[in-house]
């Protein structure tokens, strides 16, 4: 292994530990960022594994802990992990769809010291058009909202936006108001995992976005401080990339359900990097010494135009996963940046979004080889410029699709 060019004193602490405790999920969201081949992954970590990770993370200085997934409530030992997190001094956040949250569980979480619950709002059915009128979903969310309030948590709603629901902005906000949400995050889909696969059906047009923002601003003025509303635009409509993860290996450490440590939620897809398993290594080695966590620290890995760009200290060249997905090389500039020679990959996608899309039968087989991440690291640009299922139907995140997309692959990709 090449000596890591960073001594411990120069690397920031991993303040954010994300525990993706399970890839299992009762929902089948088309915009999920989880890896498309998740169904082929190995065993979930044990309770003991997670307790060890929580201890190690805290020793490294992590203060915020997220329980996520998949759906974290799928783990029946979540109560144990929550209580341990509090004992260790984490501020713990449960990031959930709310499905599986009943009074018995929330009472135990409260007693164990869970600090915060973020409920995501999404459809739980394939009938996208029923997204907002689904009585079943609305009842469930109301029940969850009541529980959240009863147990003295702030009501924090997260709504993922895409072209199929963004035109319902007014109804979404009214629903949030009915649920007495105190915070609403309207987060446009980011295009990774399943969302990447479905991108051309999910990316809203500029017109849709502008309308949604206008509605949001009007609503915000009406409710004032009663409800804090955040609107996150899709970065495809920006001209500078997001400072992804505040820099690679800078703040954020994610541990997946099957035990791999990642510097971001989706880095697992990047070929050529060996992401360490927490079964084999402790978090200290992983954070400071593992080649994967050092791969994109600092700026020595950068190419032009990033290398000589004054803004590299602000955005770190953007998102490595997006650079890889769209240009085929994770070390390229994030093509969202209009200084990138490949920025047209983004503007082309936006143009297609303006034209809308037509539906045709799904081509599961065709997508498999593209989606399984077998393109070697650093191959020619533009190889993966577009998602693989152009013209197909939406891929719902479920085990059957995952297995098909993995193309019979037996081993985890990490």
């Amino acid at each position: 292994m090449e000596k890591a060019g960073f001594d411990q004193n120069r690397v920031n602490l991993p303040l954010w530990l994300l525990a993706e405790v399970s890839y299992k999920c009762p929902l089948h969201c088309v915009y999920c960022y989880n890896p498309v081949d998740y169904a082929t992954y190995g065993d979930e970590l044990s309770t003991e594994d997670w307790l060890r990770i929580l201890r190690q993370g805290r020793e490294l200085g992590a203060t915020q802990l997220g329980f996520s997934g998949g759906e974290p409530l799928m783990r029946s030992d979540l109560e144990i992990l929550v209580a341990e997190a509090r004992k260790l001094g984490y501020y713990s956040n449960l990031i959930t769809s709310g499905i599986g949250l009943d009074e018995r569980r929330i009472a135990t979480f409260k007693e164990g010291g869970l600090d915060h619950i973020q409920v995501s709002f999404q459809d739980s059915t394939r009938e996208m058009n029923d997204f907002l009128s689904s009585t079943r979903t609305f009842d469930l969310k109301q029940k969850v909202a009541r529980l959240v309030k009863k147990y003295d948590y702030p009501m924090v709603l997260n709504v993922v936006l895409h072209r199929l629901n963004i035109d319902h902005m007014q109804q979404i906000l009214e629903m949030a108001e009915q649920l007495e949400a105190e915070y609403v995050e309207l987060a446009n889909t980011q295009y990774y995992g399943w969302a990447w696969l479905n991108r051309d059906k999910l990316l809203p047009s500029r017109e849709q976005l502008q309308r949604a923002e206008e509605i949001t601003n009007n609503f915000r003025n009406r409710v004032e401080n009663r409800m804090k509303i955040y609107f996150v635009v899709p970065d495809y409509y920006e001209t500078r990339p997001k400072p992804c993860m505040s820099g690679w290996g800078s703040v954020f450490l994610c541990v997946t359900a099957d035990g791999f440590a990642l510097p971001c939620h989706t880095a697992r897809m990047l070929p050529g990097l060996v992401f360490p398993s927490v079964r084999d290594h402790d978090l200290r080695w992983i954070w400071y010494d593992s080649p994967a966590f050092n791969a994109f620290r600092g700026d020595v890995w950068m190419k032009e135009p990033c290398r000589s760009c004054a803004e590299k200290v602000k955005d770190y060249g953007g998102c490595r996963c997006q650079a890889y997905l769209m240009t085929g090389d994770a070390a390229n500039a994030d093509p969202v940046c209009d200084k990138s020679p490949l920025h047209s990959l983004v503007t082309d996608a936006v143009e297609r979004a303006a034209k809308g899309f037509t539906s045709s039968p799904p081509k599961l087989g065709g997508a498999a080889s593209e989606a399984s991440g077998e393109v070697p690291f650093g191959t020619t640009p533009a190889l993966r410029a577009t998602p693989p299922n152009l013209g197909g139907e939406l891929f719902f995140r479920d085990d059957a699709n995952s297995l098909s997309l993995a193309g019979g692959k037996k081993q985890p990709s990490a």
Partner: protein
Amino acid sequence: MKGCGAAVVKADQIPLNDDTIFEIAHHYRFQWEPAQQMHVLLYPEGMVKLPGSSGEILKRVNGTAKVGEIVADLERAFPGADLRGDVIEFLEHAHGKGWIRPK
């Protein structure tokens, strides 16, 4: 990661005098972080660093101590300094940020 809950609702200005009692705001947690060697305030998906005197002041905001007592206690701990102005200024700032609230 965006930190929905990280929002700070600007509180209305309040009259602040020696008898005012503050407590740490709901859903915030104040603690010492050994790894950072400083006090911090944790809230949903976020953290405020409180180096030096800011940490010393908030350490004394406990829902029972009056502002006058906090000033006196700090002046005992750090003799020779006239801290009243700094303490009041910081408490106003912390209240404006929603970190503390009057009891």
